[in-house]
């Protein structure tokens, strides 16, 4: 198959460029995604940082709020205790101690559906009963009034007092009196550890001293009550104070921080997006530039390759042309050699025929006079009646020389003419063989008698070969072979010429033919110098020759093989140095495909 340079180049390089472009785009995409991802991560991280900062800030503010208010409540409790405990609450609590609560406390808690332990309603009712008994105690009303008095107009919304059993001894919200808080963590902390415990809660509805309030943030503190003058815990206060306005302020501040953070986040996001866009744009530009450069490269290469292909084609054409010319010149050279040989071959019969004919002509001329004399004599004799004739010989005597010269040996003349005929035969044989050799007057492909063709070639070759080379022809029975005889003649002539050129001095060339199955074999064997091992692999190569410039072209065997292969045949060689070489041409009797016409 022919190698299509431009097409293959285009396909390969476009494919390659495509791959390069694809991988470039892929890497660009990867890079841009990576960039975006890092940007996003950075943004998220930054956001998280800001958010946590805002939260921490709010938490700290709340903690501060709690601590401040707890401290305030502790002071308040002290004040309260100083003012009310000794005189009012201590005896009241002592009264309450008299009420037995163990029965209520013994009622088991139930686990509600959330898995949390809660007091069953009968327990709550039991304690509520205890509350009613407390409120029924004398002195309750006076204490309640005093508490209300002292707490009115303060930020304290509610106040509770517990005994060391956890029973609510007093609550500004009366309904809560009697409740059991012994399990409450705040109460336990204050009652057992003496540590105040505070909690910030939001209440939708809350019954305060001055009635029910709504939507309030409250700080509730459980505070231990110390016996005045000692550090013995005697009870627990629970105080609820209102921090709604403070909390609002804190929430406002943290809201501001948060919104600033969101703003920043947004700006940062925008900046990142802008960056991403810029990066993407740059990478598109890059891609476009590279694509453009690749296209330019492709165009340049294409121009070069096309030019190269043109040059290659030109060289190919030149080579084919040169080859054709060389083949032609080889043909002409062997033709010239043949013509010289044929001319010489013709020259010999021509020379003696010409010589003989000229001599016969001279002889005939010299016979003219004697013939005339004889003719005259015969006519004279015709007219004579008697037996005797008298002839005057004086005139004849004067021409005696010429008469004697005319007395030629007629047998010799006949032999001369016989030789001339032989010469003519030789010349016509040559002409017939010449005609058979070229076969210009016949169809290119015919069923040919190869033996006849071989003999013709041998005959023609003989005219060129040195006379001390003997040609031996040994032909076997051959079927007629479908072939182009003119081309095969050239093959055989080339082989015979090579054989002759391999022989120095006297030698012998044997031409043999024989049939075998549906093949015929022709052998050209010489007893020349043989072919050395280093030459043998090249002998069929075009232009390969070991002969000096004028003598060898290196085309003979290349052309021979070409022709034989075209006939579907084969040409082989066997050789021994110093002994000789045999070339064997094997040809099929019938052709499968029609033969090319070119000779």
């Amino acid at each position, binding site marked *: 198959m022919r190698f299509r340079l431009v097409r293959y180049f285009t396909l390969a390089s476009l494919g390659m460029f495509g791959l390069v472009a694809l991988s470039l785009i892929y890497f660009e995409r990867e890079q841009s995604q990576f960039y975006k991802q890092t940007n996003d991560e950075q943004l998220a991280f930054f956001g998280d940082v800001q958010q946590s900062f805002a939260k921490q800030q709010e938490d700290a503010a709340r903690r501060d709020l709690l601590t401040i208010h707890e401290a305030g409540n502790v002071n308040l409790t002290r004040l309260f205790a100083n003012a009310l405990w000794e005189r009012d609450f201590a005896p009241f609590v002592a009264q309450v101690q008299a009420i037995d609560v163990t029965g209520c406390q013994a009622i088991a808690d139930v686990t509600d559906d959330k898995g949390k332990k809660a007091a069953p309603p009968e327990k709550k009712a039991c304690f509520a009963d205890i509350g009613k008994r407390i409120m029924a105690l004398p002195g309750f009303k006076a204490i309640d009034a005093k508490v209300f008095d002292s707490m009115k107009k303060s930020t304290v919304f509610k106040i509770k007092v517990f005994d060391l059993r956890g029973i609510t001894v007093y609550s500004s919200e009366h309904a809560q009196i009697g409740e059991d808080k012994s399990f409450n963590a705040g109460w336990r902390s204050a009652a057992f550890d003496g540590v105040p415990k505070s909690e910030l809660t939001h209440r939708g509805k809350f019954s305060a001293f001055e009635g029910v309030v709504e939507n309030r943030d409250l700080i509730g503190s459980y505070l231990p009550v110390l016996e005045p003058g000692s550090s013995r815990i005697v009870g627990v206060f629970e105080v609820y104070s209102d921090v709604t306005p403070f909390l609002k302020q804190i929430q406002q501040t943290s809201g501001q921080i948060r919104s600033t953070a969101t703003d920043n986040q947004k700006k940062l996001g925008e900046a990142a997006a802008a960056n991403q866009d810029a990066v993407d744009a740059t990478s598109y530009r890059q891609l476009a530039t590279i694509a453009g450069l690749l296209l330019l490269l492709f165009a340049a290469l294409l121009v070069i390759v096309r030019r190269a292909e043109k040059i290659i084609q030109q060289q190919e054409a030149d080579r084919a042309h040169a080859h054709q010319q060389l083949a032609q010149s080889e043909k002409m050279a062997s033709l010239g050699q043949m013509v010289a040989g044929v001319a010489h071959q013709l020259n010999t019969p021509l020379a003696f025929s010409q010589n*003989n004919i000229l001599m016969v002509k001279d002889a005939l001329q010299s016979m003219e006079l004697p013939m005339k004399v004889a003719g005259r004599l015969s006519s004279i004799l015709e007219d004579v009646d008697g037996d005797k004739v008298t002839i005057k010989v004086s005139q004849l005597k004067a021409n005696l020389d010429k008469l004697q010269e005319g007395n030629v040996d007629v047998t010799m003349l006949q032999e001369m003419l016989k030789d001339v005929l032989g010469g003519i035969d030789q010349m016509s044989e040559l002409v017939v063989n010449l005609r058979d050799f070229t076969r210009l007057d016949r169809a290119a492909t015919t069923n040919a008698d190869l033996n006849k063709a071989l003999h013709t070639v041998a005959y023609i070759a003989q005219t060129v070969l040195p006379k001390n080379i003997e040609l031996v022809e040994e032909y076997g029975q051959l079927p007629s072979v479908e072939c182009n005889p003119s081309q095969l003649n050239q093959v055989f002539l080339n082989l015979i010429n090579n054989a002759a050129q391999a022989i120095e001095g006297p030698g012998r060339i044997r031409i043999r033919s024989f049939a075998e199955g549906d093949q015929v074999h022709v052998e050209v064997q010489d007893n020349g110098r043989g072919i050395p091992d280093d030459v043998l692999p090249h002998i069929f190569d075009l232009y390969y020759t070991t002969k000096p410039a004028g003598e060898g072209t290196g085309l003979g065997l290349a052309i021979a093989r070409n022709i034989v292969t075209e006939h579907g045949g084969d040409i082989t060689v066997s050789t021994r140095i110093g002994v000789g070489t045999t070339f064997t041409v094997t040809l099929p009797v019938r052709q499968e495909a029609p033969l090319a016409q070119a000779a």
Partner: protein
Amino acid sequence: MTRLAGKVLCVDDEPGIVRSLQWLLQKQFEVFTATSGAEALELVKQHDFDVVISDQRMPVMTGVEVLREVRKLSPRTMRILLTGYSDMQAIVRSVNESEVFRFINKPWNISELPKVVAQAITIAKTQPVETPAAEIPEDAPIIANGERILVIDDDPEMGRAVADLVGASAKVSYTRNLADAVGILNNEDVSVIISETRVGTIDATRLVRLMKSKHPEIVTVMLTGESDADTITTLINQGQIYRFVPKPIRTGYLKLVLQSALRKHGALVSDPALTFRHAVETTSAGAMESLISDVERAAPQAETAAAAKGGGFMASLGAGFRRLFGAG
């Protein structure tokens, strides 16, 4: 009728040729025939032939080989080579190895051939034979006694090579144009001419042929570049060239040729009768005139000392030619 005037042997592998030669020559001479080299040499051993005519192209032994052997066996026999087609190599070899008297081309002229044979027989019968020179080894020194050698060649290297070879023993004149050559030939006693077949644009073989017909004692050696067989045939038949030296020239071979040429000249001078053995065909009429006109045309461009003399030169050149070759 002058029959049996001499013994002639005709050799050719083609019987038709020997038969017709026999028919042609047997009226005047005693003719023998042979169809192979071996048969011919056998006959030469048995008979004393005046002339052997041999075809060149024969199996086993070529004509040149046959004539070379004939020369060894019978030096007085004149040798004629019959050639059918031009084989340059064979012809050069025939000159150098067999010293043939004539080339005869096939087909031959039936009135000329008997005359050539008759001339050869006359020479063979009447002229003394030079003793064949012994083989000269290549390294032997050149023996000469001050003879003059004229070298005519376009390449000055040739003159130098010859001068180097002969050293002081002989005088060498070199020139690259024929006008000078004519001058030298007129003024000096030239023994050997070594000439290229073409000098400049002029065919120098005519000078050599003319020289030989008037001065047969001069030995001529031709240097051949790419001359064709016809030129050489003409040279041998009309110039009796002593040797051909194919170019490029091997010094060893040139030395051998020079050596034997000088010796040949010595023999020719000491016995002028020998020169008849090298008699030439008459050159075609007008050869001298055409040579003179060619040389005169080329002379103005020649860088010759004589050319400086101006107007008188042409006249003196013409006179020189005439003196050299006799008046026409």
